[in-house]
């Protein structure tokens, strides 16, 4: 089934409400929707047709067409298609209808549009700031094109008061790797209401890319979004550019696939180690970290660096591998497989994992409603994996299975991750065996076309990573929207925490493998000075 059937179905049902239809490829189309009937269309496209939200991006196109454009990207797993529901607002319209009550996972996206573009979501139940500080002036909207990328803003120092009886964890806590704040309201030791507050680290990476860099440099910036899954981000960005500029050669695709899987193995092992540490199984944590060193050696061998591989470039990869490296990689991977398998089969480890049963429950319906991604979704029984659903790089040629468990709890999330490591090992072995000969870079790509929309997607260790991209003039990027997997998963945390004992809060929160750096897209550096948009008192409070 192609995108045409979906669009036809929608246009039959809503007739005049759909202003314009645009079919870009067989699997990708855009419909422009009238503002008044927008809510019905998105409700039908998401709930009735069984879609899941990939990303939502608001773009300030006022300098070009005099309009704001809000793109809701919905994916349909069964036929592997993507549909953009587009809402256009004139430059003097400052509000748009909020669809949170129909599509609950839009909560964060709409709040981000609100603070970044200055458009109010009408009817949003909780229109609070998401990433910017609470005392940020409301007329300063950073992602408007009239806002200079290095502008500094005066803040006042006001904060939202908390309700009485709140238990807060974070933003600075030894068990949390990154700054985030859990606000819990408990009754008889059980959590009644949970709020996740973030934005302690926001430094506007997208604005920097749009304002200062050309397209050849952004994949290095994208790699620095996250310290764990950075390569996936650069893969997503490069994929989006290559979809409109030109394909890489086959050998490059295989080498990229190998590194993506190397990253997945090291990320999953790190998560297992951290989870083990938090529940007090420090022995196992150290053992897992020891196994992880072997995969870090593989990364060193292939790319020349433990993290921040710097391997990616538009149109290919920057380093090739020879037979010597191949042998060493194979040897290390075999070692990881045997050591990790013996650890999984040990009674001690099984006992520890069994303790996690029945904690942090996220039912299948809730997971579907919230468009949860990655191992978190697969542990709730949803078979979703970008590698299978929207195959990219060499994944269409390799044979692997998607690990799905119906456990709905932390135990499931741990098991899914543990068994995915073996699948990754399988993929790396296949890629090494079938590595095609030839060049590693496509030198034909020099210029990218203007004002083209493209979406790059890949399966990060934590789930679906989606980059929405519009190219600009003179080889720049006009809009770059990063939807990290944690951005989707973290919206499910309050649901998971409901009814849990307060003691379990941290483990439940960590079970989605949160990566706040991804969510908040950090770092702005200009001429040697760092600009922190978030005032310091916020952390002291």
């Amino acid at each position, binding site marked *: 089934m192609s995108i045409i059937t979906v669009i036809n179905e929608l246009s039959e049902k809503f007739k005049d409400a759909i202003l314009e239809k645009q079919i870009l490829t067989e699997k990708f189309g855009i419909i422009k929707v009238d503002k008044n009937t927008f809510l019905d269309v998105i409700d039908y496209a998401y709930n009735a047709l069984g879609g899941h939200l990939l990303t939502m991006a608001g773009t300030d196109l006022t300098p070009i067409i005099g309009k704001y454009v809000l793109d809701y990207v919905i994916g349909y797993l069964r036929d592997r298609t993507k549909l953009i529901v587009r809402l256009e607002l004139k430059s003097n319209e400052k509000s748009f209808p909020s669809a949170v009550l129909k599509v609950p996972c839009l909560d964060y996206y709409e709040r981000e549009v609100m603070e970044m573009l200055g458009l109010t979501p009408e009817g949003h139940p909780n229109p609070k700031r998401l990433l910017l500080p609470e005392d940020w002036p409301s007329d300063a909207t950073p992602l408007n094109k009239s806002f200079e990328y290095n502008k500094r803003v005066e803040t006042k120092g006001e904060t939202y008061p908390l309700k009485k009886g709140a238990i807060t964890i974070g933003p600075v806590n030894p068990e949390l790797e990154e700054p985030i704040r859990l606000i819990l309201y408990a009754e008889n030791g059980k959590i009644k209401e949970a709020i996740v507050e973030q934005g302690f680290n926001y430094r506007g990476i997208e604005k920097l890319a749009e304002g200062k*860099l050309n397209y050849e440099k952004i994949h*290095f*910036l994208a790699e*620095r979004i996250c310290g764990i899954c950075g390569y996936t981000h650069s893969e997503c960005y490069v994929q989006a550019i290559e979809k409109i500029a030109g394909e890489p050669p086959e050998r490059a695709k295989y080498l990229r696939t190998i590194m993506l899987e190397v990253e997945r193995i090291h990320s999953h092992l790190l998560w297992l180690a951290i989870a083990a540490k938090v529940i007090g199984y420090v022995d196992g944590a150290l053992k897992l970290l020891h196994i992880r060193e072997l995969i870090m050696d593989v990364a060193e061998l292939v790319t*020349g*660096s433990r993290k921040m591989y*710097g391997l990616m470039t538009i149109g290919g990869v920057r380093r090739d591998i020879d037979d010597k490296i191949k042998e060493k990689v194979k040897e290390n991977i075999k070692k990881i497989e045997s050591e990790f398998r013996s650890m999984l089969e040990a009674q001690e480890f099984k006992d520890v994992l069994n303790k996690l049963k029945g904690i942090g429950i996220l039912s299948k319906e809730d997971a579907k409603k919230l468009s949860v991604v990655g191992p978190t979704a697969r542990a709730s029984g949803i078979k979703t994996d970008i590698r299978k659903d929207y195959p990219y790089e060499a994944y269409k040629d390799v044979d692997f299975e998607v690990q799905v468990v119906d456990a709905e709890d932390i135990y499931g999330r741990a098991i899914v991750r543990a068994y995915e490591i073996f699948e990754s090992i399988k993929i790396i072995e296949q890629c090494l065996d079938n590595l095609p000969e030839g060049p590693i870079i496509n030198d034909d790509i020099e210029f990218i076309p203007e004002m083209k929309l493209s979406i790059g997607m890949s399966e990060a260790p934590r789930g679906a990573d989606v980059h929405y991209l519009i190219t600009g003039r003179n080889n720049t990027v006009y809009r770059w929207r990063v939807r990290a997997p944690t951005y989707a998963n973290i919206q499910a945390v309050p649901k998971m925490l409901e009814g849990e004992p307060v003691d379990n809060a941290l483990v439940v929160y960590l079970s989605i493998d949160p990566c706040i750096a991804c969510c908040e897209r950090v770092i702005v*550096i200009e001429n*040697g000075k760092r600009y922190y948009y978030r005032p310091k008192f916020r952390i002291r409070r």
Partner: protein
Amino acid sequence: MSSIKEIIKREPFEKFRGKPEVDPTKCIGCAACANACPPQAIIARDEDGFRIIEFSFGRCIFCGRCEESCPTGAVKLSSNYLLATTTKDDLKLVMKFRLAKCRKCGRLFATERQIEHAISEVEKAGYTNIEDLREAQYYCPECRAKLFAERVLLSLKFFRGEV
């Protein structure tokens, strides 16, 4: 007291990307690395008849783009990864190159070394009419184009018998 290097015994592996080492005798000041550098750790600017190229290793992300883009092989990523220092200036390298004037319009258009490099490249390619080509390198691109156009016109006139 033993230095940090003695305490940390771990040797970097093959192909490791560490601090970029610059050979100032090889550098021609073309600023290709400054164009390629993603975090702007290399900055090039023209000042008072000199081109200044400034490396700030503190901002380097060790991607190796400078090494790839260098036409003379002056920049190489070394295996040195211990950049900790008590003085910030240790992480800076400033190089100055004298700029050459165009013989016709007098504009400062390239460094003297760039011109030398261009001439040596021409010689390597084995052109016979070297003196002519050598002279052409001392003109800025616009003047060079004009000069060439004038010559073509002259030869056209010659063939038509107008001269």
